[in-house]
């Protein structure tokens, strides 16, 4: 029993990091309808800015300054890049953000070089906070969890209970009326986009030192972020949270309880030919396929419930 709790706890830690990565993306999508392919690139920018700032100042300065810079870059890109493209429809927007991802990757390589930069966990938080099952949890792991939860609560409150949230939500469903009430819709969208990018920036600051800060990080993280928001339901903040936790916990359980697929089928009462064609298949273990499970969940979700867990929009 305790080992299940241990696996679930690890899953929550990992799931909240995934949520942090996906929160900005789902915000931008739900508010603007723009599927931002460059989202992971803003995450990468956050990590690189954090590295640069923590070299000069310290981690805490980076935690506050880097997301602001990323947000301003994002807002700038929305204002002078995305907005002119907007009238050509969603495909044009999608292609534009796709291009932005390439440009950011090349710029990062030009400025910071092509090998990883040594962005480290701050010394103060690298010590162990507690030990469970002989495993040291650093203060930083828990700090990541706290930041992710804080972001979720703040976002949820902002969108649900504040005037700004009210205007943003109204602007999505009924832009014409909101505009006639005197609100500057394009400006709202610009800052929403910037804010979403800033969230990616926060994830970069907090996750860059754990995942490694290098030019390929955006490409590696891009797909999993999309899996989170599609399973959760496009545009649903709560859905993204549930999906991220689900992915985290399922993959952790698959790694800890390392069953062969063959024995798994046997326990389900299915007889499988273990010598013939399926031999290689039955030799695979759940731990080996764990990182692929989210994508399997994505496929199943698209087949049986294309709107995702809490989505209100079709994919």
């Amino acid at each position, binding site marked *: 029993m305790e080992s299940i709790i241990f696996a679930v706890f690890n899953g929550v830690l990992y799931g909240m990091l995934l949520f942090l990565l996906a929160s900005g993306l789902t915000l931008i999508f739900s508010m603007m309808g723009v599927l931002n392919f460059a989202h992971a690139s803003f995450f990468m920018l956050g990590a690189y800015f954090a590295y640069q700032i923590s070299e000069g100042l310290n981690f805490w300065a980076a935690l506050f300054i880097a997301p602001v810079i990323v947000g301003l870059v994002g807002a700038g890109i929305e204002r002078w890049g995305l907005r002119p493209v907007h009238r050509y429809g969603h495909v044009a927007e999608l292609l534009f953000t796709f291009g932005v991802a390439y440009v950011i990757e090349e710029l990062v390589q030009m400025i910071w070089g092509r090998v990883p930069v040594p962005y480290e966990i701050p010394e103060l938080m690298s010590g162990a906070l507690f030990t469970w099952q002989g495993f*040291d949890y650093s203060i930083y*792991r828990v700090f990541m969890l706290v930041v992710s939860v804080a972001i979720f609560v703040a976002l949820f409150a902002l969108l649900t209970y504040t005037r700004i949230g009210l205007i943003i939500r109204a602007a999505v469903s009924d832009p014409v009326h909101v505009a006639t009430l005197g609100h500057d819709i394009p400006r709202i969208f610009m800052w929403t986009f910037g804010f979403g990018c800033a969230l990616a920036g926060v994830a970069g600051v907090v996750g860059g030192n754990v995942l*490694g800060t290098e030019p390929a990080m955006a490409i590696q993280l891009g797909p999993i972020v999309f899996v989170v928001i599609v399973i959760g339901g496009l545009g649903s903040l709560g859905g993204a949270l549930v999906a991220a936790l689900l992915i985290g916990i399922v993959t952790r359980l698959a790694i800890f309880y390392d069953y062969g697929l063959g024995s798994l089928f046997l326990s389900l009462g299915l007889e499988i030919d273990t010598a013939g064609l399926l031999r290689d298949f039955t030799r695979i273990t759940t731990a*080996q*396929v764990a*990182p692929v499970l989210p994508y399997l969940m994505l496929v199943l979700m698209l087949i049986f419930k294309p709107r995702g867990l809490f989505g209100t929009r079709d994919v």
Partner: protein
Amino acid sequence: MAVLKWVRAFGITLPIVLAAFSARGADTVKLGLIEPFSGPIAAVGRDTLEIFEFFANEVNQRGGVLGGRHIEIVPLDNAMNAEKTTQQLRKVIDDDIRFVSQGVGSNHALNIIKFLTRHNRRNPDQAILYLNHSAVTTSFTNELCSFWHFRFDANVDMKVAALVTQIGRDPSVSKLYMLNQNYAYGQAFQAAAQRLLAERAPEAELVGDELIVPFGKVLDFTPYIAKIKASGADTVLTGNWGPDLVRFVKAAAEANLDVAFYTIYAGIPSSVAGIGAKDGIATQLKQVTEMHENDALYDQQPAGLLDTYERWRQQTGKSLYSERMRWTIEYFAAALDKAGSDDPALVAAAMEGMEMEGPAGLMAMRAADHQIIFPMVISTMTEDVGRPFIYDGEDYGVAFATDGWIMSDAIELPTTCEMKRP
């Protein structure tokens, strides 16, 4: 600093552009180098090109080959896309380049071997010779062996043999945990280790043997670290490279896991930069290479070679990771001279069985399968070194110190190659 990197970026790009447009003088022997020069892992390709150009230039300064002709390196970008490698081979044929080299990525190497075996059979008058400097899949010198392929790096099985031999000597190893990437290379590592551990390190108990989804798909190694902790292992043996190695080691260091890491690729620049000094020392990170800058034998090299090494460090601001790329060029030059011709078939014949003085004794290009055999060295990351690791002029404050040499007789493994000679 940033400005400097800009300048360097152009400094590296410019020769590529210039080389591509330079007049094709009839008096050069062209060696096409097919590597990723663009995309996210372009760093590896560009580093390779820099080494090749540097040491080709050394040969040219000495008087060149075949009585005064120069070796010209022709960079061909594959952007780490196997299909583009094949496209570049077509360009090699169109431009009448008769020698190619490649090493980053065994899937590309496999494309080249298959392509050239077919091409050379159909066009014996325009045969092309492939010098493989780093692609390590063992089957290239076993069942897939080809007369037109020569390998200048130890294959996976040989590298594992070296690591396992050292593990057998290391009294601190009692419980061993293996973790590898689940594709051809990682599976080959796993199979070789399972086979050789029983023979060479019978004292070491294998308490875990795991395969993971490769190429950066695993973001968080924490659950694997927890499993290693639970298994009571004191040593990890892994063939992982790239982010799969960097994240693995960093996660172990973060959880204060008290184990030593035996690896193949800990010393490549992107690994050292990604892992960093603190985590590398905490995990007693070890690598297997053909040479490293802080070995006693390094300083015993002939004076001329030491000068060359020093000039490399000064000129490029980088530690020399790959001695084998220098050997590729030296073997190429020696075989051209021995053949007295730039006919690939004659050069290949000259290269078979060719011996050369290496840092730790004689190296030999085995004629039976075209696999080079040389002693290898295991080394551990430490702060206490004479020549710290540098990359792009940046000093990382650490490097590797020798644990022990594994001589050729312990590394040389039998081959199943049945070589078809033209």
